[in-house]
């Protein structure tokens, strides 16, 4: 009890210190006075009494000091004084403070910005889930395949099996991983929404509640009795339906069926997947009515369900994984034809799905390394600057040391100053990273239905300030240690600045290091940017300028085949009538988008060499597609309308397929069996191969056929700006059929921004980092050379007096700067070439040791170095020898 009281009194003693000091002084003064009076009353004269009293009293100053020590935690109060002094010093040297804070804020801020994305994608759990740490994702994994394509969602029968048999989970939910574009018929007017199919237990397993109404139950999700019910997303309800609680029980016409609204999800819940925010949810058993793909609930071949389960009490990932593997084995034995070599794997629950986390981590990891290097450069600058300042404070340190400050105390003083700097830089960095990360978000092409939230998360704040702290310690340690190595007597004796220019080897080393890191960064950045420029100019095999596209699904309204065809024909007629339209056609999906259809093709005459034929990608097109897309026909002809109407067995192949099957021969007229078809198809045309899956790939064999599905992409070639056409296309769709709406209406350019997105962002960030590094290095070099000049003023004066010309002086100064630069360049580019192998996987069309890049980087840095040295050199030249010699 006593101890606690003493402690709290000591804490209280931190405040009102000056008042307490004064009071104690008064108390001692009074005591002294009383003693004096006593002596006076004993007969001494006032003066003798006073000195006798003082003698008896003893050391008043010591008493005061002891009392101060007893009053409070001296450490804290002197620390506070250090902080105040440090702040004053920073304010006094405003210029260098701003420079250091700016450099550090940029470095720390960019790192924090990258971390913001890392946090949003990998670390922060999805909103609305109860205890997300208990959830595990279940992925199907094929032992026969490698890499990311070996992971797949589950089939419905497999999901049901796990759901019903897995004891280690208290519940397993499943949802359709592809929120579909659904047409909402709002009083005769078609509008496109995104909806997601989820299992009946999804909301309860996830622990997500509803704002109004109720959520799904397993009873709502019976495949033999599907219930057309929907739950709306909270923001959608607020924005599109006015937040009206009376909508419960009302109906919504979605893709031709009436659904009853049974509830609205809790605010903030945006779904089961990162960055996708579907407008509504309905049950899995409604899948046939909603997306018109019959058989998904029974097929063991369609992998479409993403699944997550909540671990039961007392279960660990290991025990759950063991059970899942066992169950997977059971399925494999029971269904050897469909589930051969299928395992199931558990991942912990995070916004980015399990198998993709590796890629995301690697990508963001690389970006963080790059910006960490920029931060290193900024730190080196700061350290240099502080060392220079510290050497100017040698006298101050000497005086402090003479007054009794130990070395530790001096170091503490300097460390406090640097930590203050780092703290200010950290605050600036938080603002910078917030602003930059939102800027980067705007780069995401709008065609992606992605929405990522980036609020100011505590994790980002902790990260930023941790980095700032480490930065402060790192760049503060050396100046502190050096600046406090004092010889008090020596420094106070010398009136002069310093006898000569002490070439600081450490500063030189730091500068060389800075240039080396900068060169390394610049080299890598230039390589990547050039690679991206190459990639950007790849010809994907079709026109990327003058085309507008739109996705339509007449089948989503439940039309008959005949009605579907009528709609598309009519639309085509309308589109061709628009001004500026040269041609239009349909395709089942665009090249370079995420869809793919594959089959195998067998030429009976080649059964000896190719018994199983070759795998090919399939595109389904209408006549006029090649002309519209600007794909050259190099042999034979395009399809004709009659072949489309009669569903003739004709195909067009690309040059890659022709080369694979019939090298050197004319493929026109050849007969092949496509997939499971009984009849043969005849090759009637050959087109030039382009890119179909990703840019810069090796040519893939592709065939084109005329059997069209109900979901088609309209492609329109226009002689004018395609962007101007978009509204007109949408309007024509509405005119032809008011119930229909087109989705993803965009120009081909904005469609192409999706495959290019990752590459473009990387290029942008790398380019920014390179420029940042260059600017920081330039500033650093400038500072160091300027300081060298000012230190050598006397020496320059002597040289000039002894007959050195202006040119000699300039050469002297430039030599120093260029020496540092060339050594740094050699080291930096050497390191870059050595590590170039790491980059070669990312580069397109450029070798990792590309000589042109070496030349560019060297020339660039040399130019920067010359610029940095030039101004200080000119200043050196203007030195008046007479003045310099007198300069102290």
């Amino acid at each position, binding site marked *: 009890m*006593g101890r606690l*009281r*003493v402690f709290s*009194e*000591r804490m209280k003693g931190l405040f009102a210190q000056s008042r307490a000091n004064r*009071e104690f002084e*008064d*108390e*001692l003064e*009074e*005591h002294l*006075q*009383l*003693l004096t*009076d006593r002596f006076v009353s004993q007969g001494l004269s006032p003066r003798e009494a006073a000195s006798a009293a003082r003698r*008896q*009293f*003893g*050391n008043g100053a*010591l*008493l005061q000091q*002891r*009392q101060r020590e*007893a*009053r409070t935690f001296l450490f804290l109060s002197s620390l506070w004084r250090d902080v105040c002094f440090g702040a004053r010093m920073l304010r006094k040297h405003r210029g260098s403070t701003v420079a250091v804070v700016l450099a550090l804020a940029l470095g720390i801020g960019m790192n924090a910005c990258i971390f913001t994305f890392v946090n949003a994608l990998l670390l922060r759990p999805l909103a609305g889930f109860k205890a997300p740490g208990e959830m595990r994702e279940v992925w199907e994994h094929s032992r026969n395949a490698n890499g990311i394509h070996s992971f797949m969602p589950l089939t419905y029968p497999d999901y049901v099996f796990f759901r019903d048999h897995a004891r280690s989970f208290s519940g397993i939910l499943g949802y359709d991983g592809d929120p579909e574009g659904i047409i909402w018929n709002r009083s005769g007017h078609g509008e496109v929404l995104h909806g997601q199919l989820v299992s009946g237990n999804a909301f309860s397993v996830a622990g997500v509640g509803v704002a109004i109404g109720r959520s799904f139950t397993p009873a709502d999700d019976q495949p033999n009795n599907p219930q057309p019910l929907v739950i709306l997303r909270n923001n959608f309800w607020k924005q599109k339906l006015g937040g009206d609680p009376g909508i419960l029980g009302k109906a919504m016409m979605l893709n031709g069926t009436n659904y009853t609204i049974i509830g609205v999800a809790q605010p903030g819940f945006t779904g089961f997947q990162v960055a996708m925010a579907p407008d509504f949810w309905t049950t899995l058993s409604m899948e046939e009515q909603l997306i018109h793909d019959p058989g998904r609930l029974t097929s063991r071949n369609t992998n479409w369900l993403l699944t997550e389960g909540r671990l039961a009490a007392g279960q660990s990932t290991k025990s759950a994984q063991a059970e899942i593997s066992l169950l997977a084995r059971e399925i494999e034995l029971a269904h050897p034809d469909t589930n051969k070599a299928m395992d199931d794997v558990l991942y912990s629950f995070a916004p980015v799905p399990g198998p993709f986390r590796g890629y995301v981590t690697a990508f963001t990891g690389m970006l963080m390394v790059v910006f960490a290097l920029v931060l290193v450069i900024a730190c080196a600058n700061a350290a240099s600057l502080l060392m220079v300042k510290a050497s100017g404070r040698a006298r101050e340190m000497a005086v402090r040391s003479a007054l009794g400050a130990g070395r530790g105390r001096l170091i503490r003083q300097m460390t406090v100053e640097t930590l203050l700097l780092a703290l200010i830089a950290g605050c600036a960095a938080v603002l910078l990273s917030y602003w930059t990360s939102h800027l980067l978000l705007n780069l995401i092409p709008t065609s992606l239905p992605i929405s990522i939230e980036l609020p100011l998360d505590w994790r980002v704040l902790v990260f930023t300030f941790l980095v700032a702290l480490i930065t402060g310690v790192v760049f503060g340690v050396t100046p502190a240690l050096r600046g406090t190595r004092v010889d008090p007597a020596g420094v106070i004796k010398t009136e002069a600045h310093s006898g000569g220019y002490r070439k600081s080897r450490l500063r030189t080393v730091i500068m060389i290091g800075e240039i080396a890191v900068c060169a390394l960064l610049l080299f890598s950045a230039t390589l990547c940017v050039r690679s991206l420029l190459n990639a950007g100019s790849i010809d994907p095999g079709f026109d990327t300028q003058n085309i507008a596209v739109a996705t339509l699904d007449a089948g989503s309204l439940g039309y008959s085949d005949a009605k579907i065809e009528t709609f598309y024909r009519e639309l085509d007629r309308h589109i061709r009538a628009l001004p500026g339209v040269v041609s239009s056609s349909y395709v089942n999906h665009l090249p370079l988008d995420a869809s793919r259809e594959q089959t195998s093709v067998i030429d009976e005459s080649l059964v000896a060499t190719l018994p199983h034929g070759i795998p090919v990608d399939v595109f389904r097109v209408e006549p006029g597609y090649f002309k519209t897309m600007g794909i050259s026909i190099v042999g034979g002809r395009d399809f004709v309308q009659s072949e489309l109407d009669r569903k003739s067995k004709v195909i067009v192949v690309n040059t890659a397929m022709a080369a694979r099957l019939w090298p050197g021969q004319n493929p026109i007229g050849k007969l092949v069996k496509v997939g499971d078809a009984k009849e043969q198809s005849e090759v009637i045309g050959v087109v030039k191969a382009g890119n179909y899956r990703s840019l810069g790939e090796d040519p893939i064999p592709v065939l084109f056929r005329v059997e069209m599905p109900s979901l088609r992409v309209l492609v329109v070639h226009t002689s004018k700006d395609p962007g101007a056409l978009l509204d007109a296309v949408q309007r024509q769709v509405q005119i032809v059929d008011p119930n229909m709406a087109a989705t993803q209406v965009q120009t081909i350019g904005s469609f192409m921004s999706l495959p290019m997105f990752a590459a473009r962002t990387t290029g942008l960030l790398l380019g920014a980092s390179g420029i940042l590094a260059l600017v920081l290095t330039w500033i650093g070099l400038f500072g160091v050379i300027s300081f060298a000049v000012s230190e050598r003023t006397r020496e320059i004066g002597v040289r000039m007096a002894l007959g050195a010309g202006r040119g000699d002086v300039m050469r002297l100064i430039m030599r120093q700067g260029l020496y540092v630069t060339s050594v740094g360049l050699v080291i930096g580019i050497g390191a870059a070439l050595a590590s170039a192998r790491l980059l070669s996987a990312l580069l397109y069309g450029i070798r990792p040791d590309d000589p042109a890049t070496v030349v560019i980087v060297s020339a660039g840095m040399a130019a920067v170095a010359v610029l940095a040295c030039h101004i200080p050199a000119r200043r050196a030249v203007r030195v008046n020898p007479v003045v310099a010699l007198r300069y102290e």
Partner: protein
Amino acid sequence: MTPEKQDEQIDLLQGTLDLLILKAVSLGPLHGYGVLLRIQQLSREELVIQQGSLYPALYRLEHQGAIGSEWGESENNRRAKYYKLTRFGRERLAGETQKWNRMAGIIGDILRATPEEA
């Protein structure tokens, strides 16, 4: 306060000094110098406390809550800080006095032992 008397100062342990101060203050509020004087008086001039030990002890006791302070007027009509005993201090004084007396009795018994009783 002659030099010889100072040499014969009985070395006081810190805890004992606290006890003496508490006792001095228990007889009425005193300022620092007054505490010194009163202890001197009560010890019939045998005990002179140094200022250097007095003030730290006063401060310690105040921090521990055994004595409280307030500003008042000294004999010379000047501002002085007066210390007085708190309730906690009163209890502590009683307890410590009891302990001291018991200890003194025990030690006295040991010291009075004659060779036969050993």
